[in-house]
């Protein structure tokens, strides 16, 4: 946070999908900024645009149908929007690495683990790393992610390994080039609970060891609490709250964030049913002009029909809700 340039700085980012029924406003004027070494969680329900945001920013969403309509994405000060495919390819893998939800489907079933790892490592280096060298790096990485018997797994095919092992391999692949930014897109959702805990431990360890800057996408606040220090809550293509993790749990501001927390099971409270948020996502072909959550919100009132931006309620805590007044404060993250 001492560093004045954030590693990732997304400003005013909007994206639509062109469909037969018109433009689907999937992401609307999103701001998200990460300082070096920060681990930020991006949470929200399925379909809120978390994955699209982080993939589109690095050219991984096919266009058409996707179209970026406004904004800027700066990685370590370098603008990414408007780069050619070739230039973006140089950024992906090398500067920005991604790990994904389902380790079962993100490895190619007909190539050996070793081939896929060395290919990725060579691509990340822009072809500068020789095959033998890439093999050494890959084996080193497999040890780093605590994969037993790296030499043997190197010759294995994906279907011969368990989900947890495959996720370790994907993590090794992503981190081999020591990227500036890691995007972990629900890395534990598809794993069973004990493996989930192991992978989360591993990620926490790697974030610490390698000084990684990371966005972790999740719909599970319990998972992100173990790894991240800050949380950005996304709803229907907008960021509605952005705060340190402690504040999200102790003093959530946005009614949607409160709803998410109420939906978490509590170990010491017996309840008949977990709370849920009534209603569904708004129609993003014709999104509401004002707050996108208003139609599901118990506290909605007349002012919610007007557009609402992020308001500062505490030094590092912003919320897009009319219930709060903007209090200008110095914030080291958003200061340039």
């Amino acid at each position, binding site marked *: 946070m001492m560093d004045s340039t954030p590693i990732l700085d997304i400003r005013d980012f909007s994206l639509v999908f062109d469909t037969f029924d018109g433009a689907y406003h999937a992401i609307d004027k999103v701001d998200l900024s990460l300082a070096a070494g920060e681990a930020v969680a991006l949470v929200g329900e399925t379909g809120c645009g978390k994955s699209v945001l982080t993939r589109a920013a690095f050219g991984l969403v096919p266009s058409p149908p996707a179209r970026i309509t406004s904004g800027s994405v700066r990685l370590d000060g370098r603008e990414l929007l408007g780069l050619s495919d070739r230039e973006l390819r140089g950024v992906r893998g090398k500067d920005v*690495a991604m790990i994904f939800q389902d380790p079962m489907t993100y490895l*190619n*079933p*007909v190539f050996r683990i070793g081939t896929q790892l060395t*290919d*990725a490592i060579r691509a990340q280096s822009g072809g500068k790393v020789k095959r033998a060298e890439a093999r050494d790096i890959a084996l080193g990485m497999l040890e780093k992610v605590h994969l037993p018997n790296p030499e043997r797994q190197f010759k294995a095919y994906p*279907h011969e390994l368990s989900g947890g092992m495959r996720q370790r391999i994907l993590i090794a*692949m992503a981190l081999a080039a020591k990227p500036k930014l890691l995007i972990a897109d629900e890395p534990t959702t598809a794993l069973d609970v004990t493996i989930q805990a192991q992978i989360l431990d591993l990620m926490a360890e790697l974030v610490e060891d390698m000084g990684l800057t990371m966005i972790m996408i999740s719909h599970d606040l319990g998972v992100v609490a173990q790894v991240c220090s800050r949380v950005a809550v996304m709803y229907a293509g907008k960021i509605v709250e952005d705060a340190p993790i402690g504040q999200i749990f102790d003093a959530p501001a946005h009614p949607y964030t409160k709803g998410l927390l109420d939906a978490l099971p509590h170990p010491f409270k017996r309840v008949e049913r977990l709370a849920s948020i009534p209603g569904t996502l708004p129609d993003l072909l014709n999104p509401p002009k004002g707050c996108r959550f208003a139609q599901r919100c118990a506290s909605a009132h007349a002012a919610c029909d007007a557009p609402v931006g992020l308001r500062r309620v505490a030094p590092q805590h912003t919320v897009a809700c009319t219930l709060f007044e903007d209090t200008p404060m110095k914030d080291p993250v958003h200061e340039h």
Partner: protein
Amino acid sequence: MTRLILKRLGMMVVMLLGLAIITFSIANIAPGDPARLAAGPDATPEMVEQIRETRGFDKPLPVRFALYVGQLVRGDLGTSVYTGRSVSDDIAQFLPATMELVFFAITIAIVFGIPLGTLAALWQNRFPDHGIRLIAVSGAALPMFWLGLMLQWYLALELGWFPLGGRLGVFDDVPPQITGMITIDALLNGDPRTALTALWYMVLPAAALSLPALAAIIRVNRAEMLEVLGRDYVINAKAQGIGPLRITAIYAQKNAILPSLAMIGLRFGWMLGGTVLVEGVFDFPGIGLYAAKAAVSSDFEPIMAVTLILGAAFMFTNLLIDLAYAVLDPRVRNQV
């Protein structure tokens, strides 16, 4: 792997026996007195009776079938009334020509079909895709013999680019028979010019024969490529910064080609059957033309033999296809 091959070869014997039952039944249920047919039109009743006895036509059907199978096991396929020679000699002469033609045709179908299918998928719903799909639809719709006639009329007769028919010109040296395939025999004989000429003679019949298979391979590869290019492991490869050529031609293609392989095996069988039509159009002295002439003169032993031989060739090709499957897909390899 060896066990798989042995098992499949064993199954082939059983299937061939089944095929023999079918062809034998058809030949014997067909109207007409086999003894009279075998004796020829000018035979006296005594001669017919003598043939009935020596050839066993007076015995009950099951006994005759057993005799027939015994004959097959000894490699005796009977005698052709039409050529007056033993069927095995005829087949040894005509089968290599057909195999040469069919191999050439299937090679055309694969060499053009796989890349065209891939290109159509890459340019889905754009101009190249429409053009390629036109080929695919025509290939499925146009009858082989009609296409053969059109090619012959326009490219051979009108433009004179290709010979009208046959295997070689009158003035070409026929290489000494080794495999019976002229291109290979000529190359073995150190005569590449004759090999090229023979290839030249096969272009039109092979084109007519290959178009339906080409169309099928395009359709299957296009559909499969579209599917595979959207798979998670392709997204992961892109996220690693791997280039589009490598992703398409290697990462995606090795997955997408598997259903095309099955299609190739199937189409190979159809092509063998198609030679009956195409060899007739191009007066190509292969087994198809031989079978057609035998059928016209109710010469049953050659028909039965050709059916068995083509059936065996079809089964053997599909065994090779299954082995190719196992080589390309490690998941199949582990099941066997």
